């Protein structure tokens, strides 16, 4: 075993507080401020998107159109729900984790380009407002996929605002991704080779490569769409020589890789949480890291599986094959994670529950993904509720569960307070079952014959839709539980201390919240970010406790943060 590396520092440092509210509302180039700005903004949009989803489910309680004024208002609901959830919740939320955690994990003082980082964030609020403004100028009714000619010749001005909004969000993503890549490749400590980098950072690296390669295609497609709408061009107008399939090809050339943009960081979070909370080294570190890269690469060759009912028939088979191949690296990750908890000492913290929930639910999304890749089955399932179910299992059962796991895991680092574990368990139970019963029955109703994006459906599907809607109300309520938990714990949560989970990655080797300069001295990473179960690791963790102290939460006044210098070894 290698020598014990100890973060430099002698005594317990004073408890630090988060910066004032005004700091978060103003321009700042501190990656931690920007991370929180990303996170809070994304959570606000999550609530908006969630409210829209509940309105959709309310309408679908009956097979007729009765809640919404007309079909167009219903179409706006799911168009904005989808766009908000993808572009303003999942992507910025992973941006939040990336911004806050990544420099800390790499032992850096900030991102490579702090100013650019702030600029990328401040593109988001105006873009979000622009997207919601569609409600006031009318008819963003073409769905988040915005297929022409519905989105060009038949929709109102909201569609123009939608395209401009997504354009801005895409620009924000690209700037963020360039920043991540440069930071990861250049700002690691000398003693951290790329094969000693935490897997969350690996995931952000893979994601960022996808963003810089794919998002410009979205920008191109949106530019053509905007020109068709306001510039009188006819790129997508078949009556004037354009082609509607052009949009589908270019849009999905971005939007399929975008699925991985939205799930790879979640997989990175999962690797961290599963390893730390089961006190075991990650199983197959290199395979997990490389499979992220494999997914990023193969992800560029599968886009036309979204077009099995419109593409030339002879082109469908090659895309079926590539789509099935991509299941292999995903499977490697799933099995590696099971290998990670196998033989561990699992702590059932809320973060761990959500990580296990991810494994449980994401695998269903993976199975339905392979099913959808089979062209003959795809003919039955394409654009039905089966697809709605599939991508919610990936994006909610996957991404959102991972976001929740990350929230419980890193909230203590950001605020210095622990989230309430009892509320966390309640949140998990409501989310897990609410989620399953919302989305699983959609598989059935879709294959039986219910298309997606309809307000009016065949009466024989009423019972299943009622079940789905009631479960979705439970799921909606579960979100309020975590928001309440975050607010209350911010004021009254237990004091976290520097390293409440006794984790080995570098973000825990500083105070919670960290100082503006992140580390008082240059941090020394442990040789293996997941090397749990060795004496060297225990010594390293004890040294962190000795340096920063462990919180004294024994007294009744848990709300008054106190830190006592640790008397090593301070197991907790």
């Amino acid at each position: 075993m290698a020598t014990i590396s100890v973060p430099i520092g002698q005594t317990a440092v004073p408890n630090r507080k988060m910066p004032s509210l005004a700091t978060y509302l103003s321009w700042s180039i501190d990656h931690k401020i920007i991370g929180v700005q990303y996170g809070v903004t994304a959570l606000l949009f999550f609530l908006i998107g969630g409210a829209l989803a509940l309105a959709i489910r309310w309408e679908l309680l009956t097979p007729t159109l009765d809640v919404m004024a007309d079909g167009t208002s219903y179409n706006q609901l799911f168009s904005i729900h989808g766009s908000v959830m993808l572009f303003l919740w999942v992507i910025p939320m992973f941006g939040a984790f990336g911004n806050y955690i990544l420099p800390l994990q790499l032992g850096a003082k900030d991102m490579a380009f702090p100013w650019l980082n702030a600029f990328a964030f401040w593109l988001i609020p105006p873009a979000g407002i622009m997207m919601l403004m569609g409600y006031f100028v009318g008819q963003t009714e073409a769905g988040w996929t915005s297929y022409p000619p519905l989105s060009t010749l038949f929709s109102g001005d909201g569609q123009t605002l939608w395209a401009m909004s997504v354009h801005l969000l895409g620009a924000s993503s690209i700037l963020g991704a360039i920043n991540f890549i440069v930071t990861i490749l250049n700002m690691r400590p000398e003693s951290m080779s790329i094969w000693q980098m935490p897997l969350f950072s690996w995931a952000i690296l893979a994601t960022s490569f996808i963003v810089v390669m794919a998002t410009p295609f979205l920008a191109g497609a949106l530019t053509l769409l905007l020109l068709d709408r306001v510039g009188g061009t006819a790129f997508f107008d078949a009556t004037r020589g354009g082609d509607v399939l052009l949009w589908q090809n270019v849009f999905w050339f971005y939007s399929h890789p975008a699925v991985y943009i939205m799930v790879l960081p979640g997989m990175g979070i999962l690797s961290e949480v599963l390893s730390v909370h089961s006190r075991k080294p990650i199983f197959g570190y290199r395979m997990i890291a490389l499979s992220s890269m494999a997914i990023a690469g193969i992800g560029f060759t599968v886009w036309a599986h979204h077009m099995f009912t419109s593409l030339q028939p002879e082109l469908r088979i090659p895309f079926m094959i590539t789509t099935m191949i991509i299941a292999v690296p995903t499977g490697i990750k799933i099995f590696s994670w099971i290998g990670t908890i196998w033989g561990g000492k699992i702590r059932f913290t809320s973060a761990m529950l959500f990580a296990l929930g991810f494994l449980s639910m994401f695998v269903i999304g993976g199975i339905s993904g392979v099913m959808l890749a089979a062209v003959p089955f795809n003919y039955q399932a394409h654009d039905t509720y089966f697809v709605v179910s599939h991508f919610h299992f990936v994006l909610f059962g996957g991404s959102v569960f991972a976001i929740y796991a990350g929230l419980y895991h890193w909230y203590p680092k950001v605020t210095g307070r622990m989230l309430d574990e009892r509320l966390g368990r309640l949140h998990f139970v409501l989310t897990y079952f609410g989620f399953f019963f919302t989305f699983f029955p959609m598989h059935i109703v879709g294959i039986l014959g219910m298309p997606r994006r309809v307000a009016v459906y065949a009466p024989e599907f009423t019972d299943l839709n009622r079940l789905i809607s009631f479960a979705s109300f439970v799921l909606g309520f579960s979100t309020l539980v975590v928001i309440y938990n975050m607010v209350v714990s911010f004021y009254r949560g237990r004091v976290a201390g520097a390293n409440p989970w006794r984790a080995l990655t570098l973000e825990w080797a500083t105070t919670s919240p960290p100082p503006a300069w992140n580390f008082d001295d240059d941090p020394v990473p442990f040789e293996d970010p997941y090397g749990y179960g060795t004496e060297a690791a225990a010594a390293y963790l004890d040294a962190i406790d000795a340096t920063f102290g462990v919180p004294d939460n024994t007294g009744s006044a848990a709300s008054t943060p106190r830190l006592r210098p640790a008397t090593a070894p301070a197991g907790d």
Partner: protein
Amino acid sequence: MDIPQPNTHRSNVVPSILTLAIFLVIIALGGVALSQLSWVFLPAQASLQARNTDGLVQLLLLIGGIVFTLVHVLLIYSIFKFRAKANDTSDGAHFHGNTTLEVVWTIIPAVVVAVLAVLSYDVWVRNSQPQEQVNFVNGESITMRAIGARYAWTFEYDTNVPLPLEEGQTLAEGEKAPTVSFVSSQLHTYVGQHVKLEMSTRDVIHSFWVPAMRVKQDLLPGRVSEVRFDPIATAGGFPYRLDENGVRVALTPEQAQLSTEEAKAQGLDNRFAVYRVVCTELCGSGHGEMYAELFVHENEEAYLANFFDRQVFAVLNPPDDPVQQGRLVLQSGAYPCANCHILSSQGWVGVTGPSLNGIGQRAARRVGGQSAIEYLATSIMLPNEYVVPGYAAGQMPHFGFSDTSPTGAASYNRMPESDLIAIIAYLCTQTESGDPAENACGLEFADGTLVDIDAAKAQIEAVTSTYRALFGTE
């Protein structure tokens, strides 16, 4: 499994042979259980394509079930076996991986998806193989087209039945006699027919889906796409037939499942089954209402009797009374009005457009300076001239006398002027009470029928003729 583990007991992480055997049995059972889901999950199996596809679906569910159970059994086992006891602050076993295991769980899924890809390809080839003798009716192929327009399906049938030549008309050498064509909002076929639809759209992208047939194909602006399927009899049989008045009556499940000969013996001939044709590509506010009925008749004889011969007869022998003509035209489903309007006398329940109940009384009051007939004609030919408050403009398809619109684009549906006259006459008779008014639209009625058919036609034609200049004549 050879897992290096310096710090823990081997028995803690490596399962015994017995555990492994139990585990394999459980995941196999899980796979079988999930593949049984196909019985609740799949709609009626009404085509050869459905039969092939469903076999693949069962296999996909079986493999999916095995993967699902495998992961969940491992998860649940780990959760119980490896949970930290209270006050246990120690770490877990220290090992970083196992190359053999990692190779195994890379190669096995790769082999499985390779097999799935081959099998899916095979089903795809069998399902899309072009059939000889498509759309056979009376021993010859006819042309069948599906037209998508917001928010209705229209099906065009170009038959081989010759139209009678007009007086003095002769055919040149080699010229084909003109044949009967008709349109319907319903798609009709029969067991054993190889259906091939040529599909096109008049506006946005639509997608043709018949869940019971397992076929789906988009209709793309600027292209003609094609879908093929081969209807078969289902386990549910044929649950409907037409009575002597041409009204659909439902049969009991026992009657539906009788063989053709047995049913005939009971006087239940010419039965059929009905499935839904659904639009699965978002096309606008009425997307959910865009569906049509697909009739599968039990054999060609039933198809001819229930549908084909009736349609051909109606084309060759139109009734004289425009009100009766209008009723038949709307009943035939030639125009997709039913998807968006309410008209109780026809059983329409659409909600995207305003109700047509009582339109005969309201029409004269809608737009100042327009007579009832003028208002109705304008509303059909130029639907955006006046939009009823509370409804959106731009939703109703355009109808023109010919295929060429004022701007030259073939963007709307053909409607012969005779149909327009008939529809106006019929709508004039629609009152809230159901009894035609004495003087509806200024036309003279007695006992619910027109007093002078020719005068009424002339009266309406005086209005509709103004659209000839705009649209040309048929």
